[in-house]
């Protein structure tokens, strides 16, 4: 590793010294080193390396806090393990905070004190980002979004071509009203996607378009900005995260839509529902909802009719951390799934106690940590196997990708589906719709 410059150190320490509120100081002072969080962490549970204990990850940041911000740490650093921000510390921080944490927050819920460990890990990533030390692989995905408007760098022409192709197939099946409207202003809903949908997995777009058609929704997708993802939450650069969030925010005004609907993406939903207004430092004055909440509103208002017997295979839910533990959608996800499938089984544990798929926190983008990612995924794989389910439903494309890889690696023989795909399969069209 190259030697740190004084500017790098100053930039990182400045963040420590300027907490916006009492949250950071609280969580950096609260850990009592009981070490009981280890058993709640997928990394420690599967690899038994002491460095993976969540408290150790907190310690990496709080030891710097003590060194630079507390009297005891300045006078007697040995007493409280106050550490210099040097090359060694930074190397360990990159490896542990970027490479060994999915920021799933499972340890937070189970912490004996209540330390928000993933908040501290994210703060550590912010310090690293301030020093320009984000892993290249992760930064590449952020750069793709900043440079091209979507995180896979899909040219507009290719995107339009793909959507038109999907629309043709949809019209073949349901008639000319089954459309995927592009760039139509003053529609109620502005719908967003994970770029991996148009690029490689477009069935979920068709599924959602079918649901919109059945619900007779007024909706559109903007070719200018349709990307729901925001890897700025992972690389720890809040300015970049804000830049990406602002694009989607501004697109709502550009398209004059009323409701921003977040495609099935855990972190993307988290950023645009919860973090975005804080990045941009003002509340959003339009409504924001996830796909799952929108589908549920259709079910509750009778806008769509479902026959759950059309999905006979046994289904289980994988709870995306950013939507359930960190997003409060536990019962909403169950409502959508239970209305769409005939046979359902819960995973154990599930809900706010769920294990991460293993691909969160930007892990899917960082190939250098691939081995760890597949190893921690073993927990999820065995959980799925134990349910005996044939289909795993999850409202997050990032989880879908990790689960698909686990499905292959651990030979689970299941199908991974989004909620929209399951719901679309259960749709019943009344005669009026079938013209």
């Amino acid at each position, binding site marked *: 590793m190259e030697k740190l410059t004084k500017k790098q150190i100053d930039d990182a320490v400045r963040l420590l010294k300027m907490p916006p509120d009492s949250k950071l100081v609280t969580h950096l002072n609260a850990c009592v080193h009981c070490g009981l969080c280890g058993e709640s962490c997928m990394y420690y549970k599967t690899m038994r390396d002491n460095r993976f204990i969540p408290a150790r990850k907190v310690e990496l940041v709080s030891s710097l806090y003590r060194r630079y911000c507390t009297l005891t740490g300045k006078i007697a650093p040995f007493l409280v393990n106050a550490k210099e921000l040097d090359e060694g510390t930074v190397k360990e921080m990159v490896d542990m905070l970027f490479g060994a944490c999915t920021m799933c927050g499972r340890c937070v819920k189970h912490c004996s004190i209540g330390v928000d460990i993933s908040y501290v890990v994210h703060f550590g990533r912010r310090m690293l980002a301030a020093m320009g030390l984000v892993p290249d692989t992760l930064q590449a995905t952020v750069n793709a979004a900043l440079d091209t408007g979507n*995180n*896979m760098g*899909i040219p507009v022409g*290719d995107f339009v071509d*793909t959507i038109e*192709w999907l629309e043709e197939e949809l019209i073949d099946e349901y008639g000319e009203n089954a459309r995927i409207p592009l760039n139509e202003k003053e529609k109620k809903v502005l719908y967003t996607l994970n770029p991996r949908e*148009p690029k*490689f997995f477009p069935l979920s777009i068709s599924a959602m378009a079918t649901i919109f058609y059945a619900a007779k929704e007024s909706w559109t997708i903007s070719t200018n900005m349709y990307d729901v993802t925001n890897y700025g939450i992972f690389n720890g650069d809040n300015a970049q995260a804000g830049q990406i969030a602002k694009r989607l925010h501004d697109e709502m005004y550009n398209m004059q839509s009323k409701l921003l609907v977040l495609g099935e993406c855990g972190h993307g939903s988290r950023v645009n529902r919860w973090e975005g207004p804080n990045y941009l430092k003002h509340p959003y004055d339009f409504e924001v909802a996830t796909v799952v909440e929108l589908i549920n509103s259709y079910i509750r208002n009778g806008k769509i009719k479902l026959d759950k017997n059309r999905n006979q295979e046994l289904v289980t839910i994988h709870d995306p951390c950013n939507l359930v533990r960190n997003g409060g959608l536990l019962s909403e996800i169950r409502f959508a799934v239970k209305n769409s499938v005939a046979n359902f089984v819960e995973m154990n544990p599930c809900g706010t106690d769920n294990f991460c798929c293993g691909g969160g926190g930007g892990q899917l983008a960082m190939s250098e940590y691939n081995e760890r990612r597949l190893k921690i995924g073993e927990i999820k794989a065995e959980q799925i196997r134990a349910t005996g389910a044939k289909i795993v439903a999850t409202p997050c494309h990032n989880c879908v*990708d990790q689960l698909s890889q686990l499905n292959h690696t651990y030979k689970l023989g299941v199908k991974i589906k989004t909620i929209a795909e399951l719901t679309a399969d259960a749709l019943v069209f009344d005669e009026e719709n079938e013209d």
Partner: protein
Amino acid sequence: MVELKFDGDGFLTNPEIWSEEVAKQIAQEDGIDMSDQHWAVVRIIRSNYEEKGNAPMIRTICKETGLKLKDIYELFPLGPARGACRIAGLPKPDGCV
């Protein structure tokens, strides 16, 4: 045989040394026995990469090969990215794949 270097995700780090032999070798790791349909997909991906420097859209793969979406997912259970693009010797695409 050329020495193959992979990134942590199993994607070639030196995509220029790719050959059909290499493709077979990677496919074997994934338990895929390369059929004509597999080759058709892999060749489209490869030529798109050599021409434009990135993976083609799934739309392009379907159009050029005449295969249906469903067929492609069946041919490559790991999907177009981790399955087909890896066999075609591309570096790992950015994003959630």
